Structure formats: C-alpha cells, structure tokens
C-alpha cells in the first residue's frame, strides 16, 4: 500500500519520538491519516483455527477477542487453566457467537510445548495462525526446565519449538511474534543468551529476548517459507495491561493517561493474521506498517553474531 510522502514523514516522526508513536496518540493519528491499511474483511477468518498464547491476560485477551470478531475459532493457550477458563467465559459473554477453546501449555517449558503441540496438532488438521503473545519479565534471573534464561525461553525458544512442531498444520498460514519496542535499546547478545554475565536487570533480560526474536525472525521466516508460512514480528506500543502494572509500575504511573487500551495494543497482531494478501514475510511491524529493526546504529548485529545466535537457537529449539 502506498502512502503519501508527508504521511510517511509524520508517521516516522511519531515512531522515533516513541512517546507519541507508542501511545494511544500515535495510533489515533495514524488511523486518521490517508493510507492507513484497511481492516481485514469482517469474516476474514471464518472457519479458521487460530492459536493465541498468553490469552489469559492483557493483550492476549484482546487479540483473542479481535480474532473471534473476524470469525476465527480461537484457541486460548494458557498456563493457568482456572484463570483461562474465567477469561473464556468473559469473552463468551461479550461475544456469544465466538467459538472458543481452552488449552493448557507452559510456553517456557520445551517438553510441555511439545506435548501441547502433539495434542493440538492431532486434533486440528489446519491452523491458520499462531500469535505468540505470552510474555514475562522475571524480577530475578530465572531458568526454564531446560536451563534457558526464562524470558528467552518464553519469548524465543518456546514459540520456535511450537511453530516447528506444527509446521504441517500451519502450511500456508501465519506466525506472529509479539515483540516489544524495548528491544530497540538492546543489541543482540549472541555471546550470552543465558544472561550469565553482568548484573541481571529484568528490563534488560526482557529487551534482549525481544531483540533475539527480531534478529532471528528473518532466518526463521526463510525456513518456514518452504511451507508457505508467513512470519512476522510486531510491537504493540505501550498498553495498560496487568503485565505493565506489575512489572513497570513507575512507568505506568507517569504514562497512564496516554497508554493504549488492550484492543489498540492488539490491533497489529489481529491485522497481521486477518489481512489479505498475507503481508511480506520476515518483517517487523508496528501499527500495521513495516518498521526498521534498529533506530540506533549501535544495536546492529554483525553477521558473525547473527550466525552465533542462530547456532544457539538451532540447539535450544532442536532445529535439525
């Protein structure tokens, strides 16, 4: 879709200022500008199965609901079934015609991801999309059952293992990695994906794992393209979710009046799953537009580092 030059310029200014672009202000301005990519058709996902991880809170709930509104059969993938059940009932109350299913999966545990993928794959012959939305910001350094640093496990290893295991079902479908604008502040740390060196900081660990998603995306997209799968990473902007309230209370107290609501944060994920034709693969998105993976040159990864990170991921996710 082509957008007029002044629109692109304004959009870029919003994006680089972060505060304007990532808040509700940025989204509202962009939606009002000419060239805003059209909404998916109202029944774009009718009869299609879509998985949303971390669907028991914040953006996950809004993503599930947005996809259900497009007619999808939405599979809520949660780690806490009781909480997930309450969320499912809530969505069903608001959207009585929504087709919803609840599944349990701990995305941070490779064994549990494989178990889950086996079960869901046995039941669904075709999956239109997975939105890898589950997210954590561990307050202390923590490790998954397989010994990976926990944010890396939940944001990178788990999603890759799940997608790999469901490649046959996903043929011709789409994969969305929910990343974060926080990754703009971190370079790829191929030398220390486990965060063993230096003092642990929750925001740094989180942002490094989101950077890893974005750096590995093009390689994953090439791999998955062989089955006609389109892969995207996106960042939601800043939305007022339970996750933000818990992990970034100070940030929230300052920015709250302009934070996005959950549906605004989920907008690009829903659009990426529903829009036709499928968006180009391997790209990073925000507010329905492709964005750069770097805004400061110092975070650019060299090819040696990228190769090293890829070797780590192949090992961690068991990519043969």
């Amino acid at each position: 879709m082509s957008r007029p030059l002044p629109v692109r310029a304004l959009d870029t200014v919003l994006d680089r200022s972060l505060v304007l672009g990532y808040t509700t202000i940025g989204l509202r301005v962009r939606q009002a500008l000419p060239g805003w990519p059209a909404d998916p058709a109202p029944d774009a996902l009718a009869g299609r199965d879509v998985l949303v991880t971390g669907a028991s809170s914040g953006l996950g709930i809004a993503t599930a609901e947005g996809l259900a509104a497009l007619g999808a059969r939405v599979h809520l993938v949660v780690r806490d079934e009781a909480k997930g059940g309450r969320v499912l009932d809530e969505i069903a109350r608001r959207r009585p015609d929504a087709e919803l299913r609840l599944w349990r999966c701990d995305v941070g545990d490779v064994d549990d991801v494989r178990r889950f993928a086996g079960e869901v794959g046995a039941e669904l012959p075709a999956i239109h999309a997975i939105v890898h939305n589950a997210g954590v910001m561990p307050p202390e350094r923590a490790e998954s059952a397989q010994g990976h640093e926990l944010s890396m496990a939940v944001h990178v290893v788990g999603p890759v293992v799940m997608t790999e295991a469901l490649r046959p079902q996903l043929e011709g479908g789409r994969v969305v990695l929910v990343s974060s604008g926080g990754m703009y502040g971190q370079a790829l740390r191929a030398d220390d994906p486990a965060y063993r060196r230096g003092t642990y900081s929750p925001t740094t660990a989180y942002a490094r794992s989101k950077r890893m998603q974005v750096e590995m995306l093009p390689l994953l997209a090439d791999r998955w393209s062989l089955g006609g799968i389109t892969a995207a990473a996106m960042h939601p902007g800043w939305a007022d979710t339970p996750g933000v309230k818990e992990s970034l209370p100070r940030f929230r107290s300052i920015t709250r009046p302009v934070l996005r609501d959950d549906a605004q944060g989920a907008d690009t994920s829903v659009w990426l799953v529903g829009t036709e034709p499928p968006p180009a693969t391997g790209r990073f998105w925000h507010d329905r537009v492709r964005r750069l993976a770097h805004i400061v040159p110092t975070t650019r990864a060299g090819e040696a580092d990228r190769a090293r990170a890829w070797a780590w991921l192949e090992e961690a996710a068991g990519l043969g």
Partner: protein
Amino acid sequence: MRRPYGVWAPPVAWWTTPGVMPVKPTVTRTFTTTAPPEAVYDYLCDFSHAEEWDPGTLSCERVSGDGGVGTVYRNVSSFLGRTSEITYTTVEAERPTRIHLTGTNEQFDGHDVLGIRSHGTGSEVTYTAEFSFKGAARFAAPVVAAYLPLLARRTIDELRAHLDGLA
C-alpha cells in the same frame, strides 16, 4: 571523541567517525527470482559460480571440501583497479535457505550471507555483504562503503539474471 548517539542522530556516515565504529560497512539487497529455493541454493552454495555472477570476481576455484561447511575457495577479484586474492570458507550451509561464507586475507575480513525463501513459484533472496579491513587497508573502508551501492546493484543484476536462467 565519541559522538553521542541519541534516538535523533541521523543515519549519516557515522562509521567514518574515528572511535565510533560499532558496525562494519554492510550492504543488504533483497530481490526475487523465478528459480525455486533449491535451485538457487545449489547454484550459490558452490561459490566457484561467483565467476559467473560476481562482476568483481576474476576467478574462483574450490581448494578443498565437498561444498558443505568447511569448504575452501580461492577467489581472485578486482576492486577499484586492484587485484586481490581472498580465501573464502563456507561456515553455514543449510539447504535450501541459508548460505554463509567468510572471506579473509591479510587486509580484509568479510562475510557473504544469502538468505533464500520460497516466494510464489520462485524465490526471494537476501544478499548481505559485510566488510572489515585490517591494518592500513582500514582507511579504505569509507571508500568501499561509498562504492557499495553501485557495486551491489551490478552484482544483484548479474546474480538475478543467472538465477532466472536456472528456472
């Protein structure tokens, strides 16, 4: 002196500023071809074909290896009127999506990376070349970087023509 890099710093030729060289001159181009990924991969993974598709390469022969990881090539190329010999080694070879070679001699270290993905009935290919120079040659980096866009265009035109010929 270190130049502060704020969010607003324009993407100018920052790598020419001494002391601020976080990244090496790099050029990345993405193009489509009618050849399917396997054909693209098989052609490009044999780096001796650089004789055909790389306008700068005068000769390129396999010195050792079976074409997989660890294969070594001797590449003689000319660049801005100078002839140099570079030893290339295959460091990643994942059929049909990823090829990575490193090139090295006394003055130069480089990476050539090809990402290949399925695109309709053909492929989309991303070619990345990263350069770094050692010793006195490092003063050539800005010249090389300035010349890169032109070099990239010529290379991609040749590359695409040869790949389309495979389809």
